[in-house]
């Protein structure tokens, strides 16, 4: 397809009055004017394509940047961060010369449009981020949010998303070791599909997205570039869906049907192997994956981070569709591509490795000693920009924010006033209802579609509190990861809600015996143009940054997904927090399941009357109001230290953190997993209802062998952590003395049948 005339740099300079479709590309008028100002002339079509995708909300973080800075400014003193925020993913020192990189990203909108491919390519994208750091990916996690469990559209979206995550991750050979599945009507038109990946490398293997060394070659390798997903992630992720798209019947498809990408996990598996082989031979100077904004992003970021400039010959990009225009090539979001900077004398070897793995690799340009990014097409220059202005100096907005006027009323609507069960029989019924409710029910139907075993290093996988992977066979060094978020808590109080998410993930990691080290996050919110949403965002970020500082766990990176709303209605503010931990010897890990009858159950931490945003208030009363549980991060830290020490010294045989659903939910899970029941006694000073359903933070239950009881309780006493004996592992029922008995069989049926009967 010949386009006449080609919009070259020269042509642009000579035709200042030509109007380009900046609005269609999602730019605002003042943004366009800034581009003109930066260039000193109007941009060419290709330049406009690059600026428009790179300055989109998705790529530039223009609304969130001013807030995210706190993660750096408030970062705790630490000696674990090897690479901080701003790179493809942060890198953490886990000892013995190993470094771990991890990150969570969203693929929300694409997964609503095409659940299978949207979710699959979400996994593909995050895995490439991890490879780009120089690491071998070793596990994935998938925090998910869907609309109401019984809504017909959930039956379209959820199975597709789960099949997509499994289809891609399983085919790559990455064990899936954790995640979340949450149902809430607020996610009906905006499911949240977040995907996280962990990678492992030696310290010396860390790679950065940096193009340095004039004369070094720019090699594009992986899939051919096609027309799929042009502007996909970028434009798509930046716009709100139409209200009508969520038709009442639920079977309707979104009205908006942009091109989505199709993933090729087999190609990605080859990409992983050939990239790691090239790393091993030290052939790579700098590397960047191609994700949102494709080549526009990879070339401008590599050049911007490096010391020199870059020249790219766009004609050399291998195409799947020969009719693509240069603008489209620059914007294409075809999956499974990477871009490497390689010294000239190593290019042949690099290409050889690619060929070994049947991966197409092409030199498309080189690093120059100037400071411009220049792109040529048919011998003519169509892009001539300062790469920093594209990649790093995009617009920054201080969006107005304001505490919504309904916040007070919401908080005043105290869940403590809801009618409580009056009889033991009612209490028993509510327990059954809780453990069978979609959010509290077993997610096995979903998680068994994921490979947990591949790579042969999985120590713990779901439904454990955290996933755990061995990274050194000799020493038993391992890492653990947990992801958590609670949109209900965060809606009630965004600052506290974000800290509760952090506290829960931190606690989950500690419950397995691993020491929490660092944090990544995925911040899912509504439209930043709504001051109420912006306030939720600002508060959540402030809460998370303050929390990380207090816990001593730096934020290593993350992802922001905005515009998750249908019409005027935003999702609950949903910061998802991932905490990474390390354990010196995985043989000391603590599982969730009860191990042996006769072991003593201890409740660690304080239980208060806290029901705001609780599972109980949702399941029994369909209520959301009041305040979320209080956060005491010093207490969380102490609890974690006790859990870790107890695991290291063999004082406990199982542990389970308490979170949504409260104590009874945790006991039921440990009992069902271990196939062993428990006899519980309501401790003095608590009523049975509060004991079972309160969601006070900073708590866990542990099973202590009798021989360890004195040692364990002494330790808790010495450290001032409340430890209350609440019962014993015993029999094949969960009994609350003086209240009720529920057989494991009855509990299992309630807990395990819900999801299959809704979805299968």
């Amino acid at each position: 397809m010949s386009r006449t005339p080609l919009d070259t740099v020269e042509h642009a300079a000579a035709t200042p009055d030509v109007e380009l479709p900046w609005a269609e590309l999602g730019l605002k008028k003042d943004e366009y004017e800034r581009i003109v100002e930066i260039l000193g002339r109007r941009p060419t079509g290709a330049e406009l394509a690059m600026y428009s995708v790179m300055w989109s909300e998705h790529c530039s973080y223009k609304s969130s940047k001013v807030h995210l800075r706190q993660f750096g400014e408030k970062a705790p003193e630490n000696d674990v961060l090897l690479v901080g925020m701003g790179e493809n993913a942060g890198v953490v020192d886990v000892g013995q010369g190993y470094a771990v990189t991890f990150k969570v990203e969203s693929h929300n909108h694409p997964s609503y449009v095409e659940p299978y491919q949207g979710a699959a390519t979400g996994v593909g994208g995050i895995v490439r981020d991890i490879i780009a750091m120089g690491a071998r990916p070793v596990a994935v996690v998938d925090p998910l949010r869907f609309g109401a469990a019984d809504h017909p559209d959930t039956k379209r979206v959820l199975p597709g998303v789960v099949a997509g995550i499994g289809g891609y991750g399983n085919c790559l050979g990455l064990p899936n070791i954790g995640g979340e599945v949450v149902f809430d009507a607020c996610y009906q038109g905006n499911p949240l599909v977040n995907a996280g990946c962990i990678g492992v490398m030696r310290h010396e293997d860390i790679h950065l997205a940096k193009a340095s060394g004039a004369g070094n070659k720019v090699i594009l390798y992986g899939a051919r570039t096609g027309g799929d997903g042009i502007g996909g992630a970028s434009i798509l992720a930046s716009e709100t869906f139409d209200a009508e798209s969520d038709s009442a019947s639920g079977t309707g498809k979104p009205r908006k049907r942009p091109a989505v990408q199709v993933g090729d996990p087999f190609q990605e598996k080859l990409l992983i192997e050939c990239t790691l082989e090239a790393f091993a031979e030290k052939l790579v100077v700098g590397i960047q994956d191609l994700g949102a904004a494709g080549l526009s992003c990879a070339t401008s970021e590599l050049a911007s981070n490096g010391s020199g400039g870059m020249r790219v010959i766009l004609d050399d990009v291998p195409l799947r569709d020969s009719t693509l225009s240069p603008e489209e090539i620059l914007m294409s979001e075809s999956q499974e591509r990477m871009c490497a900077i390689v010294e000239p004398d190593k290019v042949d070897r690099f290409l050889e490795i690619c060929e070994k793995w049947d991966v197409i690799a092409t030199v498309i340009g080189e690093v120059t000693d100037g400071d411009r990014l220049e792109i040529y097409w048919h011998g003519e220059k169509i892009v001539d920009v300062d790469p920093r202005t594209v990649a790093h100096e995009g617009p920054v907005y201080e969006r107005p924010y304001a505490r919504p006027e309904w916040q007070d009323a919401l908080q005043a609507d105290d869940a403590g006033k809801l009618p409580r069960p009056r009889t033991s029989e009612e209490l028993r019924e509510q327990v059954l209802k809780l453990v069978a409710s979609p959010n509290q029910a077993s997610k096995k139907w979903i998680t068994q579609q994921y490979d947990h075993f591949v790579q042969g290093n999985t120590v713990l996988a779901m439904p454990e509190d955290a996933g755990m992977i061995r990274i050194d066979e000799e020493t038993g060094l391992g890492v653990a990861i947990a992801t958590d978020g609670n949109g209900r808590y965060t809606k009630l109080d965004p600052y506290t809600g974000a800290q509760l998410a952090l506290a829960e993930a931190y606690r989950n990691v500690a419950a397995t015996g691993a020491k929490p080290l660092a944090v990544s996050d995925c911040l899912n919110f509504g439209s930043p143009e709504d001051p109420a949403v912006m306030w939720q965002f600002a508060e959540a970020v402030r809460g998370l940054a303050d929390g990380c500082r207090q816990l001593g766990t730096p934020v290593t990176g993350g992802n922001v997904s905005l515009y998750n709303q249908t019409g005027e209605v935003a999702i609950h503010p949903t910061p998802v927090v991932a905490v990474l931990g390390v354990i010196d010897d995985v043989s000391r890990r603590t599982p969730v399941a009860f191990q042996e009858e006769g072991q003593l159950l201890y409740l660690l931490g304080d239980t208060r009357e806290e029901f705001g945003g609780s599972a109980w208030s949702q399941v029994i009363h369909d209520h959301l109001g009041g305040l979320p549980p209080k956060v005491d991060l010093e207490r969380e830290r102490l609890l974690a230290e006790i859990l870790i020490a107890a695991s290291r010294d063999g004082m406990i045989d199982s542990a389970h953190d308490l979170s949504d659903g409260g104590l009874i939910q945790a006991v039921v899970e440990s009992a069902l997993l271990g196939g062993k029941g428990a006899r519980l006694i309501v401790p003095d000073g608590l009523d049975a209802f509060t004991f079972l359903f309160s969601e006070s933070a900073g708590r866990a239950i542990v099973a202590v062998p009798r021989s360890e009881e004195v040692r364990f309780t002494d330790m808790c006493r010495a450290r001032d952590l409340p430890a209350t004996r609440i019962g014993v592992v015993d029999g094949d029922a969960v009994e609350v003395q003086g209240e009720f008995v529920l057989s494991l069989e009855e509990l299992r049926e309630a807990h395990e049948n819900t999801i299959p009967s809704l979805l299968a």
Partner: protein
Amino acid sequence: MARVVVDVMLKPEILDPQGQAVQRALPRLGFEGISDVRQGKRFELEVDGPVDDAALARIHDLAESFLANTVIEDFTVRVESDDAVAEAVK
């Protein structure tokens, strides 16, 4: 009873990893001269009663809303007569 066939193929601009895998294997099997392979799905529906325009219209709706995801796929619906010479309907 009649058979209606719905063919569902990825849109031409969408990557077809399955077709590509087949195509890349061909030379190894000693096959030359095939420049492109695309792999899609074929549904055979056995319809009770006559396949009139109304029935076809309904099957068309079915294909559009359920058998294919028109974000990434195209489809055709046709009646397959006994001599297997198909008649294009869409």
